[in-house]
């Protein structure tokens, strides 16, 4: 499948150490921005009980789920520490100050 980089807008649309969601027909995707202006994308569902990860506190390259405080790694979606589970990651990139999400992957099942 060829990639289709969809323009989500300027980096400034995301709060530093924060996240917002992208609604797609199949799923909500949380797009995160770290203090160092890196972006990451995870399915907006905590592997524990489906908590909305975009609402969590972002620290380092991690987010704390707002429901029961599982710590999820932004890079690979894995739960940190003793908790086991993984949120799905999606390809996202930053180019010339704009955020792009690979819809080829994001829209696939």
């Amino acid at each position, binding site marked *: 499948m060829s990639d289709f980089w969809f323009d989500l807008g300027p980096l400034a649309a995301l*709060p530093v150490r*924060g996240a917002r969601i992208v*609604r*797609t*027909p199949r799923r909500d995707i949380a797009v995160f921005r770290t203090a*160092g202006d890196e972006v990451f994308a995870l399915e907006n569902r905590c592997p524990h009980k489906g908590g909305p990860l975009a609402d*969590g506190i972002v*620290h*380092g390259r991690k987010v704390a789920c707002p429901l029961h405080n599982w710590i999820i790694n932004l890079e690979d979606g894995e739960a940190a520490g003793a908790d086991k589970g993984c949120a799905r990651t999606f390809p996202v990139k930053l180019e*010339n100050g704009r955020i792009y999400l690979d819809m080829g992957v994001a829209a696939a099942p």
Partner: protein
Amino acid sequence: MQQASRRKLVVLGNGMAAGRVLEELFARAPDRHRVTVFGAEPRVNYDRIMLSPVLAGEKRFEDIVVHDDAWYARHQVDLRKGETAVAIDRQARTVRTASGAVEPYDELVIATGSRPILIPVPGADLAGVVTFRDLDDVEAMLAAAGRGGNAVVIGGGLLGLEAAAGLALKGMKTIVVHLMPTLMERQLDPSAAYLLQKAIEKRGIEVLTGANTSALLGDGRVEAVRLEDGRTLPADLVVMAVGIRPHGAIAAAAGLEVKRGIVVDDHMRTTDPDIYAVGECVEHRGACYGLVAPLYEMARVLAARLAGEEGPGYAGSALSTKLKVTGVDLFSAGDFSESDEKDEIVLRDPARGVYKRVVLRDNRIVGAVLYGDTADGSWYFDLLKKGADVSELRDTLIFGQAYQGGGVLDPRAAVAALSDDAEICGCNGICKGVITRAITAKGLASLEDVRAQTKASASCGQCTSKVEALLAFSLGDSYAAAARKPMCKCVDLTHEEVRGLIVSRALKSQPAVWQELGWKTSCGCPSCRPAINYYLLCAWPGEYRDDAQSRFVNERVHANIQKDGTFSVVPRMWGGLTTANELRAIADVADKFKIPTIKVTGGQRIDLLGVRKEDLPAVWADLNAAGMVSGQAYAKGLRTVKTCVGTEWCRFGTQDSTGLGVKLERFLCGSWTPAKVKLAVSGCPRNCAEATVKDIGIVCVESGYDIHIAGAAGLHVRATDLLGHVTTEEEAIEHVAAVMQLYREQAVYLDRVWKWVEKTGLEKVRAAIMDDHDGRKALVARFKKSQRAVHRDPWAERAAGRELHEFMPLAVLAPARRRMAAE
């Protein structure tokens, strides 16, 4: 080689890249080309980065010339100073200049650098507005500085700060206006930026961060800068230093590929095989550069190419930055975007103003920020570029190159090895001998004793662990470290110590706290960030700006998150009272937004559960329209004031408990507290409002009001303690507000009132509230001040559009095809 058989090389631009290419080329193949250089600037090649010292008066132009006229003559280069190239004819292989000259080429090098960005605000074209790029700009600034007056530098990056430092040295009253919250945010993390700002301010330069310029004012000549928040700054000179844009117009017009910069391959070739580009004007593998180190690497590759050598290509550069302001030691390199504690090493020395941070990934250095002591910058940068595995060095890496090779000391052995006059506490200048003598002579046995007797570690606390090691070393096994509980793993200090130091040292930002109190991580953790955010808000009301990203989602979006990711909305019902209109509005909102559950809460009000996040602002707008405001059911702040019906209706009522409850709720709601606060007012000792299990409870009696505090009925159940008795309603309100403020100022973040009272002792609280008349009045005055800063309805603000990003998705991608099919 014959003159005629030499290839004709034309170079556009005579800046740093061009100068370096020619130098490298002549070293490799001195006779291969006949060279013509067009330089828009009317002068020889000079070291642009040294313009800052020229502005500061530390160097003269002659000192920074790289190639003088004799050099060009020696290499038979035809240098056309002050002649701008305007077009390239790729068919004819010629270049045309502004003066009409046409010059043929065999090979062409574009080295046109970049152009400073002018922010498009009204007045940007006024006289007295300059950029900082070439000698003409420096001369304009020096001329303005000669007349004195006010300078405003827009942009707090490398160039802006160097300009500001120069202008201040020349006697201008200088202000730096920076859009972002911290200086040099692309090169520095917040801690280093904090130290930098302090150093810049020490030079008498004012720094305004988070400040957006909206216009330059003046009649022909600039007179002032207006900011978006309405402030106007007087200005006789404005320097715009907000960034640069690669200068690729001439290439684009000739049909070469230009994106942000002129696109080149690894051998600096553009999309035309006879045309090369080099320096700041290029874009290589998607990256544009604004520093000289990459240009030097590019120049080497290009020179080899022009010399006909088959060398390795250019592969992109790692960057490092230094600021050329005399007396400011700062170094940054690579990627130090926020890392996790486990892969960063931080060293702070608050007394010397030193901050060092090295970021690792897979045991390799990927970034470094150094402030105050940059001696090891090049060592780290070297390890970074080599991708060296540093796992062996990890324990001593942060101390620098000089420490390598020695055995790793355990801290006790390390202090034991120190001489008696080695300084332990930098803040108070206390050396080891003073401490060990005090320990033995006065029989000190605890950290607190040492602090009280010697002042060591009583200021910033950074040396706490050293002092403890000294105690352990002096007392041997009889020393048991006290059960002090540090705030979190980022710091050795307790919550109470941090709170105290924030006030006594006037620390007003999170980076200031981290640096001055010696945080061991670069940016705190999810456990200390919300606490520090609260302590700063409480200590500096109206001055410290709340950091939403250091808050739990409920407090960020002013509603409570539910298990399915929807939210609940609880409007205030003052003292438990409501009206038919309010109930109607609630019913309407529930219908309109299809809210599934409406529930009466345990706090005498109504909860609307299952509201979609996107609907929140609209729900609030409707509730606001009916006169309702946020019930702050999500806040570490005042939640509810439960009441009973009191004298208004009840046959036993002794006072107007409902009315007092309403007054208290209106007065106390709004400002943040360490944990949630719940009140109740009962009209008589039958206590129908359950006042004796609340954080603060009032029980009305015939003679007035009994004020109770420290009740709890949650995870922990505890009946209140009686604080005291007052006779009038006014006094009751005053005493309650004073308790609120004392709790706000003293309690550890997340401690409910009962916990604080148990830690502090009821007697102490009683003395401060009931016995100290002036103290009480002062507490109430401070409480009122904190309320002024927040007494706006957060719902109304958000319904009006504040922080809309919290509620709106970044993007919504509708299934276009499916929707069409459905239509």
